[in-house]
């Protein structure tokens, strides 16, 4: 077992670790709404919709706003 961090990382340099970290933050703070991300949101929305009557109504009110976003995500523009 490695007893210091240099050994634990082996041949990997800080540039590799830094690159991964930056990639992670880029994804985390991305404001874009690609289809994959939108699909990930779907289960949560369904759960919210089914939880009570008024939540369903509120979510339906949002639908007109939602449709262009879905279109945009699908067309990828």
């Amino acid at each position: 077992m490695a007893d210091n961090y240099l050994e634990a990382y082996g041949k990997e340099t800080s540039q590799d670790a830094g690159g991964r970290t930056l990639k992670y933050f880029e994804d985390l703070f991305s404001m874009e709404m690609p289809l994959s991300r939108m699909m990930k949101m779907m289960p949560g929305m369904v759960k919210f919709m089914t939880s009570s009557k008024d939540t369903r109504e509120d979510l339906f009110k949002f639908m007109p706003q939602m449709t262009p976003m879905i279109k945009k995500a699908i067309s990828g523009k």
Partner: protein
Amino acid sequence: MPRLDKVAQIPIPKSMFMFKSCVASNKYPGIEACSSDTMRILGIEPVESDEQTCCGGFVTFANVAAPTASMPAVARNLSLAEEKGLDTCVVCNGCWTFLNEFGHFMNHNEEVKSSVNMMLNMMGKEYKGSGSVYHIAEMYYRLKEEIRENVKRPLKGIKVATHYGCHYLGGGKYTAIDDAQMPSYLEEIIEISGGEVVPYTANRECCGTGFTQVINGKDLSLEHTKVKLDSVKEADPDILVVQCPYCHSQLDRIQQQFNFRNDGDYQTPILHIAQLVGMGMGLDVGKLGLAAHVSGRARLENVLDRIGR
């Protein structure tokens, strides 16, 4: 920098949205009861909402949630006050910094705000960024003349020490009403309520909770709390006043743990500033919720005997 004059800019509204704190509600209900009642006596009608949740600060700084997840939660809570057209009043340092800091952040970052609002729109809400967040200690300081008029049960001869906590003064370096290193507004409120202020060395030290450190690194946390409590014990106040329920919980409960381990004998009752002001204003003893306090219960009774129940 002494900048207590900044307090004059705080408006005195007819009513305010009282933001309930998790620790205050579930561990020290006296804080919740006193904050509402004292504000009502001071002429501000407290407005509450069942929809209000935890500020989300704990889960965020415990790294369970990324900032992208906590931002909408903050916006949601703030929008509850905005719907009613009110400013928010909080009793907890953590809530104050978290709501304030992330609120400011969204106000200055349109892109983030719109993406947060998209999520809020789904549930029929919107965050505009129109309301402000004030700590209850700020409001007390703003209303100090009203407090002076309403003192019914002066804390005559009661020695009070203060603990400001970190997240109000430290985190709000430029937004808090007082200097981060040598604050004095709590002292003033105590003197108005008739108490006697005792200084001690470790006043500006952290209570030791360390947000999550009390769970993850309990040794570190306790070691630091011990430093704090030792210094308090030296000054031997009747009451230690805090302005954050989380500090309240740490300082109150850890005393008992030290006593249990025979690691010193600490018997200092901790009171939140809302409870202290409520005590001075002559609120019913039941309202103070002193039964929920763990340490220094005998001493609290003694204090009540001296000032009258």
